[in-house]
C-alpha cells in the first residue's frame, strides 16, 4: 500500500524531470556553447574544455578574435542598438496591443460589439503563416515609407498581436459581473471612471498575463523584423541571425546573444509570475 502511494509522486517527479530535460537541454547547450572557443563549437561536451568570454566580448566589439581565431564577417554593429530597438519596439507594441485590445475586448464582452463574426475575424489574421503577408506588406510599407522605421514595426506588431489581447482580456472581462459596473454607475461613476476604478483593477492579472505573452511574441519575432528592418530598426532576433562569417555560422556569438536576449524575458516573467498564477483571483463574492 505504501509503495503504491509513493508511486504517484514518483511518476509525477519523473515526468517533471523529463519535461525539464526536454526544455532545458537546448538552453544548457546554448549556455555551454556561448563559453566555448570556435574549436569546440562542434564538440559534444557540455562543459567547455577551454572556457572563454570572447563570444560575449565580440557582441560589443566585432573586431576582436574569438578564442584566437579571426572571422571574416560583415558584422560591424554592436548589440546595443538592436537591444534598444527590441526593447522599444516590443514594449510599445505590447502597450498599444493591450490598450486597443482592452477597449475592443470590453466592447465585445459588454456590448457584443461587432457580433460574433468580428471577434472570430480577428483570429483569421493568425490563421495564415506570416510569410503570406510579407509580399503585400512590402508593397504597402515601401509606398507609405514605413520600411526600416519604428512606427512601421510597432504598427505591424500591434496589429498581429491584437487578437491575442482581445481574446485573453475578453475572458477576464466576462468574469466580472455587469452588476459591479452598474453599482459603480449608480454611485455616480462615469463610464470612464467605471473602467478605470472597477474594471481595469479587476483584470490586472489578465493584463499582465497578456502583456507577458505578447511581449514574448514581439521580442522573438523574426520574419517581419527581417523584412522591414534594414539598419535603423534591426531587432535582436535579426541581429542573432547575422552572426555568420565567410566560412560558416558563428555559433559562439549567436549563443551568447541568445542568452543575453533571454535574460530580460526571464526577469519580466519572474517579476509578474505572482499575477500569472493568481490571474483569476477575483470573481463573484458567492
Amino acid at each position: 500500500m505504501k509503495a503504491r502511494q509513493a508511486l504517484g509522486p514518483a511518476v509525477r517527479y519523473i515526468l517533471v524531470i523529463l519535461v525539464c530535460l526536454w526544455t532545458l537541454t537546448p538552453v544548457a547547450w546554448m549556455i555551454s556553447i556561448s563559453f566555448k572557443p570556435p574549436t569546440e563549437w562542434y564538440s559534444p561536451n557540455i562543459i567547455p574544455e577551454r572556457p572563454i568570454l570572447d563570444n560575449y566580448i565580440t557582441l560589443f566589439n566585432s573586431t576582436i578574435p574569438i578564442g584566437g581565431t579571426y572571422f571574416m564577417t560583415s558584422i560591424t554593429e554592436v548589440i546595443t542598438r538592436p537591444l534598444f530597438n527590441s526593447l522599444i519596439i516590443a514594449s510599445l507594441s505590447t502597450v498599444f496591443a493591450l490598450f486597443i485590445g482592452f477597449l475592443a475586448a470590453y466592447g465585445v464582452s459588454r456590448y457584443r460589439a461587432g457580433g460574433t463574426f468580428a471577434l472570430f475575424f480577428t483570429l483569421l489574421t493568425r490563421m495564415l503563416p506570416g510569410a503570406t503577408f510579407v509580399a503585400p506588406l512590402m508593397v504597402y510599407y515601401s509606398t507609405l515609407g514605413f520600411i526600416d522605421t519604428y512606427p512601421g514595426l510597432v504598427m505591424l506588431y500591434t496589429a498581429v498581436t491584437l487578437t491575442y489581447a482581445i481574446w485573453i482580456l475578453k475572458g477576464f472581462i466576462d468574469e466580472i459581473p455587469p452588476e459591479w459596473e452598474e453599482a459603480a454607475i449608480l454611485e455616480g461613476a462615469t463610464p470612464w471612471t467605471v473602467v478605470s476604478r472597477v474594471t481595469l483593477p479587476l483584470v490586472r492579472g489578465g493584463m499582465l498575463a497578456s502583456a507577458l505573452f505578447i511581449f514574448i511574441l514581439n521580442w522573438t519575432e523574426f520574419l517581419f523584423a527581417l523584412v522591414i528592418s534594414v539598419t535603423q530598426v534591426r531587432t535582436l532576433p535579426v541581429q542573432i541571425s547575422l552572426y555568420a562569417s565567410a566560412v560558416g555560422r558563428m555559433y559562439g556569438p549567436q549563443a551568447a546573444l541568445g542568452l543575453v536576449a533571454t535574460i530580460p524575458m526571464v526577469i519580466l516573467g519572474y517579476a509578474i509570475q505572482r499575477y500569472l498564477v493568481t490571474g483569476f483571483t477575483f470573481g463573484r463574492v458567492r
Partner: protein
Amino acid sequence: MAKLEVRNLRKVFGELEAVKDASFEVSEKETLCLLGPSGCGKTTTLRMIAGLETPTSGEVYIDGVLVNDVPPQKRGIGLVFQDFAVFTHMNVFDNIAFGLQIRNVPKGKIEAKVDEIARLLDLQNVLFKRAKGLSLSEIQRVAIGRSLAVDPKVLLLDEPLSNVDARTRDRMRAELKEIQADIGITTVYVTHDQLEAMTLADRIAVMNEGLIDHLGTPNEIYEQPKTLFVARFIGSPSMNFIECHLTEKDGKPTLEADGFSIDASGLSESVKRQPIGSELTLGVRPEDSWLETEKRSAEAMRAEVQLIELLGSKSIYHLKIGRSPLLVKTYTAAGVEVGGTVWVALDKNKLHIFDKKTGGAMI
C-alpha cells in the same frame, strides 16, 4: 427622504413582455416589497426605477419629479444587488467611500461619513480589511453602506438574501429589519421569499407575469388575497384549493366536490349570486380548519389521514376528502393515525372562494 411613484411601467425585451403594467406609490420612509416568482418582472421593475433599464412606456417619479430621462447616477438612488457587487479589490472603507471619492468630496467629510455608516452598520472592526475575506453578512452590510454613503432618496434592494443559505438568511433578515428601522429610508425590496416580504415590508406588491396582482399590507395580502395566484403564493404551507361547483341542497346553496360539501348560505352575496353549476375554487389555509376524532360539528367532513408531519406542539396533517387532498395545520391531536379516519371542519369565516376561470377572489 422622498416619495417614489411608478405609473403604468411596461418593459418589452424583444418578444418577451417582462413587465406589462406596474403602478404603485411608495411614501416617505415606507418599505414596499415586490414579491413574486422568478420571471414575474419584479427585478426589471426595480431596474427601471434605478434607471438601468429604459421603460418601454410608463413613468417613474421621485419626489414628484419625472425621472425617466434622468441618468441613474443623478436619480438619487441606492441599489443593493443580488450578489451585492462589493468590489473585492478594495477594502471596506474604499467600498463605502466609492461614491463620495468619485464626487470629489473632501477627505475629512468622506471619513466622517464612512465612520458614521460603519457605526450604523457595525463595520468599524473590518473597515480596513479587504472585501474579499469578509463574511456574507458583512458583505451585505458593506453593500448597503456603499449605497447609503451618497445619501440616496430611495434605496432599492434586489433579492439581497436569495443566494444565502437558510440559516444565514434568517440572521441577515433580522439584521436587515434592524438596519431598516435605524435608517428609515424609502425602500423598494425585491424578493421571491414571502417570509422576507412579510417581515420587512410595510406593503407588498405581489407580481405575477408582469402585472401586480395584489398591492396591500402583509396582513391584507395574507387574509384577503385578491387572486388565486396570490393565495397560492403567500403562506407556508400553502393554501388548500378544492375545485368545486355550486349546487342547491335542501334549498340552500352548497359548494360541492367529491366527498365534500359545504353550506354556502352564510357566504357572501357575490358567491350566492353565481348561477347554479358554476365552477369555483375554494381556498382554505391549513391553519383555518380543525380536526375532530369523532364527528361533533354538523359540517365536519370525513377524511382519511395520509401523512402526519410532526412539528412539535403543532402538526401538519395530510388528509384526503374524497379525491381532494387537504392540509391541516393544527395542534397535535392524540388518536389521529396515518391510515385512520378523522373529521375535519373548516372555519367558515376564513374561506376564500375564487372564480375558477379568472382566478379572481369572490370573498
